[in-house]
């Protein structure tokens, strides 16, 4: 749905490494505390809110190009990923999430299937 619009914010790169996926999300102009990320039903959801009160104190807007709505985007990461395994860093307006691929869980899954 979001892909149909050309100017959606939160442009993201996904990179695959041997042991993890790295997600880089553009989120310029936020405080770290305003960004929230959580996992629910295998979806990683990232949302951010702008400080509206702070913005209104400033002057008259002449030009507005920056996205000012609600920032939210979800990524399917699968049911095996736990929230506490994800490492998140916010730097230079980019949120970087490292999502491990879980080789240990795979081993457990293999063990659990026992066909005699």
């Amino acid at each position, binding site marked *: 749905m979001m892909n*149909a*619009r*050309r*100017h959606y914010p939160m*442009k*993201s*790169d*996904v*990179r*695959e*490494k041997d042991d993890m*996926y*790295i997600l*880089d999300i*553009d*989120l*310029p*102009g*936020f*405080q770290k505390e305003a960004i929230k990320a959580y996992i629910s039903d295998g979806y990683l959801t990232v949302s951010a809110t702008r400080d509206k009160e702070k913005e209104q104190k*400033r*002057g*008259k*807007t*002449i*030009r*507005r*190009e*920056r*996205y000012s709505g609600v920032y939210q985007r979800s990524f399917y990461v699968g049911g095996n990923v736990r929230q506490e395994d994800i490492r998140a860093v*916010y730097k*230079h*307006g*980019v949120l970087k999430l490292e999502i491990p691929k879980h080789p240990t869980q795979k081993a457990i899954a293999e063990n659990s299937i026992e066909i005699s």
Partner: protein
Amino acid sequence: MLVPSVFSNNFVDSFFNDSFDHMFDDMFRAPFGTGIAAMSTDVQDLGDSYQLDMELPGYAKEDLKADLKNGYLTITAQRSSDNDEKDENGRFVRRERYTGHCQRSFYVGEGVKQEDIKASFENGVLKLVIPKKDAPAVEEQKYIAIE
């Protein structure tokens, strides 16, 4: 009569809305010459100055250059090669972010001096405060004194 859903009005509407209207939006919104919608900027009038907030996510302070020439303020962003991203590249599964060189100019008036412009860069947003020095001077010049 049965008509495939793709021929319904909704489809035509959304097709034209998404593909053409927005294409022209993009053309005018994107910084000239780059063809991409980076460097989105809000401009605000603070009374005695203008404030520019420009989105430059992923760039470091050292990657940015602001240059004032002939009344035009030009912001250039170029990712430096010694960026810490390099050693952890991995294979791209999806790539939406723009990470290359970008540049954008704003006319601020010839009366503005480089040292008058205050610039700060925080969380991927470049904030520039430009005093309105030129505006009153230009207006004064326009009038002819009538005795």
